[in-house]
């Protein structure tokens, strides 16, 4: 009897420990826990994927009790529009709850956590959606800041809060970010294009220069630039379909946007000789090869490493 009882006891112990190990394994495999101390603040982040839904929670606790941030997010990573909608929706709620100063402080703390935690990870680990969730929190706070700032600017007619997931993230080339959170320094970008004739020489350089020249502001967002490029491309398209040749058409002297002001047979011969843009001295530095004129500008190209930090400020 004692022997049977002992065997049962051993079996129960084995079963219990197996179950505990399974649970631990489950947690280790699926959940990501990040705990970070910054100045007088404790930042905790936990994320796991269940049924293709990313569940996340972030807590930021100030030890002197000046603020407490606790926010849970449930996101379907396969639907980028839904990600933007959920983050925007939560940002609107947060903008009613926190002041601009608190949001600034929180986004600073999240950025410090991102820098400290993700810097030590491999590229594969950073690309894991659970870790990208940490960056989504940063976007959430940046969107909240945008919402608060836009409310200040136009107290009567509040503009709708729009967030566009960066194409770089969708193409798996960059971390999660909204186009609206990427600032472009216009004079620096124009200077960069002028100093690097090889940059985007195949596509878009002329369009980029023209579009950037239209902005009066020194600082714009990537989304502002994308909207303007789309508008310019549409205008160019409608112009090329009209009977009057454009400034970039064969036979028109020079290469500029808008209608052609002066055409000449010599310019037509020159343009035909410059279909491939070689030699460079003969075809002018702003020459765009004909075959690639129809291509659209890929945002991934803008986010290429070749572009200096002076242009894009995250």
């Amino acid at each position, binding site marked *: 009897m004692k022997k049977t009882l002992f065997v049962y006891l051993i079996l129960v112990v084995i079963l219990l420990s197996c179950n505990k190990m399974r649970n631990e394994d489950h947690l280790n495999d699926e959940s990501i826990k990040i705990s970070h101390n910054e100045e007088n603040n404790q930042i905790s982040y936990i994320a796991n994927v269940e049924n293709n839904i990313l569940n996340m929670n972030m807590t930021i606790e100030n030890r002197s009790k000046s603020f407490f941030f606790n926010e849970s997010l449930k996101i379907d990573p396969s639907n980028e529009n839904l990600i933007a909608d959920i983050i925007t929706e939560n940002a609107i709620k947060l903008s009613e709850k926190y002041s601009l100063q608190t949001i600034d402080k929180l986004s600073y703390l999240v950025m410090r956590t991102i820098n400290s935690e993700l810097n030590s990870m491999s590229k594969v680990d950073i690309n894991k959606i659970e870790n990208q969730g940490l960056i989504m929190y940063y976007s959430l706070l940046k969107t909240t800041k945008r919402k608060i700032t836009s409310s200040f600017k136009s107290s009567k007619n509040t503009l709708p809060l729009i967030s566009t997931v960066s194409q770089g993230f969708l193409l798996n080339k960059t971390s999660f970010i909204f186009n609206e959170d990427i600032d472009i320094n216009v004079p620096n970008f124009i200077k960069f294009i002028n100093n690097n*004739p090889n940059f985007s020489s195949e596509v878009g350089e002329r369009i980029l220069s023209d579009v950037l020249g239209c902005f009066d502001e020194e600082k714009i967002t990537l989304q502002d630039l994308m909207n303007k490029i789309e508008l310019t491309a549409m205008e160019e398209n409608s112009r090329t379909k009209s009977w009057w040749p454009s400034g970039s058409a064969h036979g028109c*002297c*020079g290469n*500029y946007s808008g209608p052609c002001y002066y055409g*000449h047979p*010599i310019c037509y011969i020159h343009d035909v000789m410059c279909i491939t843009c070689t030699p460079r001295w*003969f075809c002018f*530095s702003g020459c765009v090869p004909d075959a690639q004129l129809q291509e659209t500008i890929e945002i991934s190209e803008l986010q290429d490493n070749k572009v200096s930090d002076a242009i894009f400020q995250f």
Partner: protein
Amino acid sequence: MNKINNDFIIFRLSILCVVYFTLLFLNSYVFNYNAAIIGVFQELLTIPFLLGTLILLVISARSVYIKTFTFKNISSWSFIILTILSIIIFGSFFIS
């Protein structure tokens, strides 16, 4: 006297060609000015200047052939300048 004047004219025109193509090269590889007005004049003038260089080269070669080649002869200098210029500009069409 008239012949000497013609040689001087050819020499001056060959210098003008050198100046024009030097400015084109400098703009393409150093300054990179993309102003539309520069592009208009460039498109209009480059092909006439290319043809002009060839015509001047033929005239100066003929002059050198008639007078024999000496460094004292101004048409010899025109011929040297235009030959070097032609090699560079026409050669660049074949070297990518």
